[in-house]
């Protein structure tokens, strides 16, 4: 009952907004090359569903590949950094610099390096750059979040660095790490879309290309359809990551 109400409220709001949009477009006779009504966008979604689905799949695949790459680099680096303050002092400024540099600014370079005939490689690399920081910083702050009294207990019994890492800091970092992965998943989609825009070619056939292509032809309803697919993809990925996070944390706490 409660879950139903939680769904009904946003659904009602969306219906009201769509209704207002539809009515405004019709009453004010807005040309559909400026702002198409929702009904026309819905038709575009249905008509283009096969290609939208394929494009969404490509974007998702590139974003997930980027997430895996980012995690594969950020996780061991954070563990290593957590092991020694010297490494942390060396690595942290670099990581922060990487994070504050806008991905659009480095995208043209990466596109050239990856080879213009392989835009998907550039897109995965750029999305991985964006996804790297939340995973790295989540893992790192998590590694430092262990209860200071538990740290003292490990001092007291003469624990080795490895014991401390595996039995105290890594488990303590889990909730922070999962949060980082969740944020990174959302960012990897954004990174993939931005990178595909910059690559500006249809080579990767993701949703960003659908938006670009429709925009160039002034097919605004198709543009909206691709944006809609992107929003659904992002929300779906977020929900999936949230479910994974909840499962992992339930096991971590020993409760369901």
């Amino acid at each position, binding site marked *: 009952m409660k879950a139903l109400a939680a769904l009904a409220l946003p659904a009602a709001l969306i219906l009201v907004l769509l209704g207002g949009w539809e009515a405004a477009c019709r009453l004010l006779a807005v040309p559909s090359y400026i702002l198409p009504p929702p009904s026309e966008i819905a038709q575009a979604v249905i008509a283009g569903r096969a290609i939208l689905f394929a494009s969404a799949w490509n974007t998702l695949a590139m974003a997930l590949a980027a997430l895996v790459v980012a995690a594969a680099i950020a996780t061991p680096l954070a563990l290593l950094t957590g092991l020694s303050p010297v490494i942390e002092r060396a690595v942290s400024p670099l990581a922060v610099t990487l994070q504050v540099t806008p991905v659009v600014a480095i995208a043209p370079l990466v596109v050239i390096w990856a080879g213009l005939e392989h835009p998907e490689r550039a897109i995965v690399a750029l999305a991985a750059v964006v996804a790297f920081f939340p995973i790295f910083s989540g893992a790192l702050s998590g590694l430092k979040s262990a*209860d200071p*009294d*538990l740290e*003292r*207990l*490990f*001092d*007291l*019994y*003469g*624990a080795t660095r490895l*014991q401390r890492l595996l*039995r*105290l800091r890594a*488990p*303590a970092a*889990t909730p922070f790490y999962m949060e980082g992965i969740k944020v990174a998943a959302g960012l990897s989609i954004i990174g993939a879309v931005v990178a595909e825009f910059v690559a500006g070619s249809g080579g990767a056939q993701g949703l960003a290309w659908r938006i670009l292509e429709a925009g160039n032809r002034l097919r605004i309803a198709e543009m909206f359809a691709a944006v809609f697919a992107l929003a659904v993809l992002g929300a779906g990925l977020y929900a999936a990551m949230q479910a994974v996070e909840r499962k992992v944390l339930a096991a*971590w*706490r*020993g*409760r369901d």
Partner: protein
Amino acid sequence: MTAPLVRLEGAEVDYRDRRALGPIDLEFAPGGLTALVGPSGCGKSTALRLLAGLERPTRGRATRSLARGETAVVFQSPTLAPWASALANVALPLELSGAPRAEARARAAEALARVGLKGAEGLRPAQLSGGMAMRASLARALTTRPRLLLLDEPFAALDEIVRRSLADDVLALWAETRPAVAFVTHNVEDAAYMAERVVVLTPGPGRIAAVFETGGPMPRPPGFRAEAGFRRTVEQVSAALAVAAGEAAA
């Protein structure tokens, strides 16, 4: 006369150029029960870290004749790892000290049974009540059979009934293996009940204001809290504590 486990000689500890503790001269003999009482900010926890060897004196000496693993600490909060079962938490000190896993787990189960937590082995800390978690923490401290047991306000977060029964449990456990116990608290009654010797500290920097012998049998017999001698000791320690706190304020 046996040699003391820990001897503090003119020991002082500074934090950021401010003296937090000392100078203090104090000895801890094997099997003795000592309480350190003082107002907050008197460096009680610093004193405990000094005794644990987790801190070095800035000036003076702290001589410890204890091997690694012979000192155990029970902190103010249970300090259990939330991701591990009660059994794994209690087995941790043994496993860190290199005991084989099976042996560590068996001894941990024994220790849990001794503090009345038989059957709670598989529970996570979040599933334990405050009193149970504190007992698990006590069991963890006892698994290594320490010669020096340090308690840092272990009952501060518990209600009166639980803290009284836990105080008796601690004394009963002490009677089994007779470790030296140093107990930090701001509760005078707990101090007088659980210790043979009560050391009153002044606030910032903590120095010894007075030392009392509490007398009476250990562990305490039923009804001990109501006895006139015990009440008198509590009053004396309270008065000394008030004087110590007042001197600092003046």
